[in-house]
């Protein structure tokens, strides 16, 4: 009898706890009163590389990052994207970094039905990467490729595995509206940085405009 009650009770408690935590985390993102973190060690950084213009923007940003504060760095890119791989290898001048490739979630012209399966596949391939790397920071700037990665990062946070922060930098080409990726990240990212004041006006406290709110 006791065993039967436990058998019912434990899953209920677990699911209640994690749904509450899910709502808590999303609300925390949306309301944006998350407390600032204080890391005692350099941030383990997972960088999601998109393609084309997104890669260029991300590498430009990485050039300016203090490599000592954000180390080690793991670049995640789609296995078909050899151009981006060469660019990362050329631009990354620090030490302690590596590249991991995951299957692309959707190829150009792939049908929507099969792309559902390949997206699920690429999510599964991302899980071991995130679990073994334990990132403190997941940094992404679109396009869609970063959604599965951030989804996994959000899950590991949900289950108390690592306290990962997700930062989404909206591309400079977005002046008036957030991209589709941005709209999805609206609910998951701890910090969204936009590069035009128009976006700040539209989305208010949820987004940060460049170095807004910093003293110097």
């Amino acid at each position, binding site marked *: 009898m006791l065993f039967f009650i436990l058998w019912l009770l434990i899953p209920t408690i677990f699911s209640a706890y994690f749904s509450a935590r899910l709502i808590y985390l999303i609300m925390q993102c949306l309301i944006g009163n998350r407390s600032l973190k204080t890391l005692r060690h*350099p941030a383990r950084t997972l960088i999601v590389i998109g393609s*084309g213009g997104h890669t260029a923007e991300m590498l430009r940003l990485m050039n300016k990052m203090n490599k000592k504060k954000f180390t080690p760095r793991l670049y995640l890119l789609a296995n078909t994207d050899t151009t981006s791989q060469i660019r990362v290898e050329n631009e990354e001048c620090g030490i302690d970094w590596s590249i991991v490739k995951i299957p692309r979630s959707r190829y150009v012209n792939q049908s929507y039905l099969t792309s559902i399966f390949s997206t699920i596949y690429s999510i599964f391939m991302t899980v071991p990467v995130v679990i073994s790397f334990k990132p403190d920071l997941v940094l992404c700037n679109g396009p869609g490729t970063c959604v599965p990665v951030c989804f996994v990062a959000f899950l590991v946070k949900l289950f108390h595995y690592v306290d990962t922060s997700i*930062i989404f930098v909206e591309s*400079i080409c977005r*002046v008036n509206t957030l991209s589709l990726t941005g709209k999805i990240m609206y609910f998951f990212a701890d910090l969204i940085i936009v590069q035009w004041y128009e976006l700040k006006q539209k989305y208010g406290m949820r987004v940060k405009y460049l170095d807004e709110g910093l003293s110097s």
Partner: protein
Amino acid sequence: MSTKSVFVTVGTTKFDELITSVTEDCVLEALKRKGYTSMTIQIGNGTFIIKPSNIVKISSYKFKSDIGLDMRNSDLVISHGGAGSIMQALDYGKPLLVVVNEKLMNNHQYELAEKLYKEKYLYYTTCKNLCNILENSDFSLLNSIKIDNSHKICKQIEYFFNV
């Protein structure tokens, strides 16, 4: 005699309409009147075959790993609306004319081009109006700017982590 050159780029996309418009006689004439004598075209995934012209000397290629050199050597850049190409041209301080692809679905490329046009960093147009714009625009009126927000974004990220 001056030897000014134009660099045309479509980035990694396919944008044959731009190549067609830019090699039309009326555009070439307008360029010649402004003193441009040669044109290099990066045609990307396009299937277009370029006719030689006796108005302006035209050369072309599909892709290069780094188009920066061609861009730096030119005196005017005509580019598609991709952010990468726009930022690169502005970085090199080249006068820039952006041609927006009207056929792209829910086109957000307008956003950036229009915004930067309002600030007078570039001119933008569509394929149909290319000839007209080239005739009537004074590229020396454009302001030069390097848009690099990386430093500010880094600060924001570092502030977030308190490191």
